[in-house]
């Protein structure tokens, strides 16, 4: 497979890059590691006129501890760079684990944090070659008003496979978006849309430049289910955070990933834990509630129904781990 033709721009500074994005508007696509984007381009899912590479922008590659005890991460940090960061591993082990679980070592050497957060949604009717797609009608993602996964749907149900998104929500992180018009901070919990086509709140000309992690609070865990270790996209991910004791939690946040176009915050399950504490009984109830709250779960390669069963297993195991976790 070969790449489509494009003009290549390589800004040296963020300002230069933002100017390029402003100038070329919808004709420009942002590239960082390229590990996902270049494949989508080979599939002709993205055929930009201008490819703007931010890999030379050094100011987006820093890991900086903050005065308040938090941590700021440049969007251009590679996942390997983050996986090797001691401060990240020590203060935010769940996020560290999530980033470490992305793709293979080969992929993480190129892939960036920004790329993982913005990772395009995936669907097995769409993430195929152009020739392959000719066999079927187009869909919301290409040139039609149709979802092959849920025929009656009025929007795209492609899956958000970002391994970092659920943990970032649990950690109460925010992302900084920049454009020539300035910057804005958006909590990760408000960053995603429940629509596979337009799956983030980013606007034309904006780029995600970094992530701010507030000082760590309480305990958190991350779990990923995938058929093979060290390679696959998840069949389900789950992040859970608890502040306070198991008996009397002050706050609980539970988020499921890879179950739809956006990470799914499990409010009902969290409420159960908050009300009854984190114990064997509440874990079972919360896991069942998680399964129920997911509604219709569609998936890439597993028959419907299997993922709902997985959800229960995933939530149960991870909450068990969270309960036993010492700070």
């Amino acid at each position, binding site marked *: *497979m*070969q*790449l*489509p*033709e*494009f*003009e*290549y721009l*390589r800004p040296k500074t963020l300002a230069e890059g933002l100017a390029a994005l402003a100038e070329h508007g919808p004709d420009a696509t942002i590239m960082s590691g*390229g*590990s996902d984007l*270049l*494949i989508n381009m*080979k599939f002709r899912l993205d055929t930009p006129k201008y*490819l703007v*590479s931010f*890999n030379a922008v050094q100011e987006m590659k820093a890991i900086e501890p903050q005065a308040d005890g938090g941590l700021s991460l440049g969007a251009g940090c590679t996942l*390997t760079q983050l996986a090797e960061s001691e401060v990240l591993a020590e203060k935010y082990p769940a996020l560290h684990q999530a980033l470490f679980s992305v*793709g*293979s*070592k*080969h*992929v993480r*050497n*190129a892939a960036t944090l920004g790329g993982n957060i913005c990772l395009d949604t995936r669907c097995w009717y769409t993430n195929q070659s152009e020739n392959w797609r000719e066999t079927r009608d187009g869909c919301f993602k290409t040139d039609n008003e149709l979802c092959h996964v849920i025929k009656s749907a009025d929007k795209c149900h492609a899956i958000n496979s970002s391994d970092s998104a659920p943990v970032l929500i649990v950690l109460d992180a925010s992302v900084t978006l920049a454009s020539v018009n300035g910057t804005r901070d958006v909590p990760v919990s408000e960053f995603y849309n429940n629509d596979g086509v337009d799956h983030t709140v980013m606007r034309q000309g904006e780029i995600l430049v970094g992530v701010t992690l507030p000082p760590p609070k309480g305990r958190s865990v991350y779990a990923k289910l995938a058929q*093979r*270790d*060290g*390679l696959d996209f998840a069949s389900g991910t789950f992040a859970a955070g608890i502040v306070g004791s198991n008996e009397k939690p002050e706050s609980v946040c539970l988020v499921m990933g890879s179950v739809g176009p956006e990470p799914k915050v499990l409010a009902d399950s969290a409420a159960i834990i908050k009300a009854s504490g984190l114990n064997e009984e509440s874990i079972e109830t919360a896991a069942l509630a998680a399964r129920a709250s997911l509604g219709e779960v569609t998936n890439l390669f597993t028959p419907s129904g299997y993922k709902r069963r997985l959800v229960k297993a995933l939530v149960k195991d991870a909450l068990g781990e969270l309960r036993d976790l010492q700070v």
Partner: protein
Amino acid sequence: MAKQIITLTVNGDEHEIAVAPYQTLLEVLRDDLALTGTKRGCTAGSCGVCTVNGEKGEAVLSCCALAVEWDGRSLTTVEGVQEGNDLHPVQQKFLEYGAVQCGFCTPGLIMSAKALLDVNTSPSEKDINEAMAGAICRCTGHIKVKIAIREAAKVLREREGGVADGQA
């Protein structure tokens, strides 16, 4: 879509090459530099046969890297692993322990293994799995590959002046 002249150092040799922005590193290595030891596989980042080592020795999927992004940088391909006329310990042990069968994935496996051993000569089982999970091998089933990597690590530890204590 003007071509751009880049300077790329491969296995210590500096090349000035005119490349189109859409050419991958793999295409430039194989088609422009005739370094066909790096194989073309899935071209979608999943099989690892195109692996080369970057400036810090890290594993790079050359099918998913733009050649223009490598302007002014250097890399190593499987043709550059040999030490003079002798095989590198990773190559030697792959050969000795039967970790080579059809040989098509072998360059990618060698470069993935070398990326690991360049920074870690006492790899755990998990370290080896982690380093190799991005690479496919249908023939050997990875079993003798893992043995060869452990054996190569022993040799490299000895070179470092340590003791080959059978750790890992």
